[in-house]
């Protein structure tokens, strides 16, 4: 009983440390600029300045940042789910010469860190004329070694009897993939989908380097540039930060069961 109480006390202290920055972000976003420059600081806004949010849209083309980020996230995620699952199906269910060699080659990509491929990619995308376009933002992110690996592991666990029956009925390879494997792999597809959505939405270094015009800015690059312009106007900056993070926070709260399962799977499987 005593230990339970002590546990709760400690967990609450931790939870407060986790949540206070979010609360402070929201409270600051509703204060006036002069109020944030007071010593000692006020906790609650003296007057709720909801117009800070409108001011963000007035100062920069925030709607465009939103649209760009949504386009980038959807583009990468949908194509990645399709291409990764297709390749994973071949590795999990089909026989062909060179299967293991190709699989190991794909796995080797997992070891290469982002910053190593950054500079040559800048060269490649320049050659293709893709710098500062959606192609640069989306196309390289459509391929994922991690996704192939994760889905292949899951597909291997789907009972073989299911597709053998379908083969008897004269189902094509694509048919087996589409009608048998995919419907039976929704947990893995959802987990990969959430991982890709999060990584794409929050991605910063890649869009920072591969785009330069304001028209191509995504939210992360947008609010970073915003910080450069209005470095001390914290109500405005916090309003921008709130609006950039809220979609992912909402997604997490609704889909947390799937995300938690996905993360736990990685650690246990290895």
């Amino acid at each position: 009983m005593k230990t339970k109480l002590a546990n709760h006390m400690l967990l609450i202290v931790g939870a407060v440390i986790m949540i206070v920055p979010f609360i402070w972000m929201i409270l600051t976003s509703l204060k006036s600029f002069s109020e944030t420059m007071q010593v000692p600081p006020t906790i609650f806004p003296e007057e709720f300045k909801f117009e800070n949010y409108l001011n963000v849209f007035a100062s920069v083309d925030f709607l465009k940042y939103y649209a760009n980020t949504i386009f980038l996230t959807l583009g990468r995620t949908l194509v990645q789910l399709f291409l990764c699952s297709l390749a994973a199906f071949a590795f999990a269910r089909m026989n062909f010469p060179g299967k293991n060699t190709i699989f190991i080659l794909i796995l080797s990509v997992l070891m290469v860190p982002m910053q190593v491929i950054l500079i040559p990619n800048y060269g490649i995308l320049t050659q293709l004329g893709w710098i500062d376009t959606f192609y640069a933002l989306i196309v390289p992110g459509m391929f994922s070694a991690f996704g192939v690996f994760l889905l292949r592991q899951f597909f291997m666990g789907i009972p073989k009897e299911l597709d053998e029956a379908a083969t008897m009925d004269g189902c094509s390879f694509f048919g087996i993939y589409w009608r048998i494997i995919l419907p039976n792999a929704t947990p893995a597809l959802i987990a990969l989908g959430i991982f890709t959505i999060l990584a794409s939405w929050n991605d910063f270094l890649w869009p920072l380097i591969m785009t330069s015009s304001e028209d191509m800015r995504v939210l992360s690059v947008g609010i970073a540039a915003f910080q450069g312009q209005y470095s001390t106007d914290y109500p405005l900056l916090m309003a921008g930060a709130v609006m950039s993070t809220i979609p992912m926070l909402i997604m997490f709260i609704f889909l947390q069961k799937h995300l938690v399962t996905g993360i736990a799977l990685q650690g246990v499987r290895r």
Partner: protein
Amino acid sequence: MSTVTVSNKSKSNTIVKSKKKKFSREALWAYLFIAPTLLGLATFYMFPAVASFLLSFTRWDGMTAPTYVGLENVITLFQDSSFIRAIMNTLIFTAVSVPLSAGFATVIAIMLNQKIKGMVFYRTLYFLPVVTMPVAVGMVWKWLYNTDYGLINYVLGVFNLPQPSWLFDPNIALFSVILVYVWMTVGNNVILILAGLQGVSKTYYEAAQIDGATKVRQFFSITLPLITPTLFFVFITGMISSLQVFDLIFIMIGDSTALLEPLRTVVYAVYEYGFEYSQMGIASAQAFLLFIAILAITIVQFVLQKKWVHYDG
């Protein structure tokens, strides 16, 4: 007689033929399914990884053709005190943040594993920072850390505690950012360790209780050894990502040149050389040196795991 043999032969022939044909058709379809991913990975990941290695030996501005300079870049870098400092910053960042994050996560996960009420509620709160855009996290903490108007120093002042200038004192700036990074990553580790804890069989504890082992004793001789494979995974993945920290550092430095020395990490240096000074050869060498360091540290971890990781649970 002979006609029978012929028909039999032709029959078996067609079976072999169709089987062979089916196999090659299967292979063709498989290649077709793999081709887009393999081509994409080859173009944007495998080829660049090799190119990065080769570019390390060149002088290149990103526009004109690169010129071969041998080991000049590497020699320059090891004589450059600000790059050495960036390596030190990166190593300190990793050496402090990963154990801190794993340690806090272990304590939190053990508390959450006690059939506690509101487990999902706590887990949600601890995980929120993980899904938050790192750029936004950096902005919020920069504001919390503000020497004069920040919430943290206000609270410290209320309790009459010293009020450091978190980001602008060069001696503690890096540690201030490390704290933010721990705050950002702890939730992810909590979930991994919680999954590891839930895999520990209850029978071990029942046996320990019969033997009269205390809770503390149970933790050190049962729980901890059995979750070492999970902790190993947490350490490996944590180190690989913290050695590449960039977003948080970029935001914390902002436009203050005074923060460059105390906060610059290797990936930040890659960004500076590659995309601010257009010295892509040097930037490639920096990136590749970091890659080698990551590989080396990972290999050392795998070698050392025999000393502390138990896989017999």
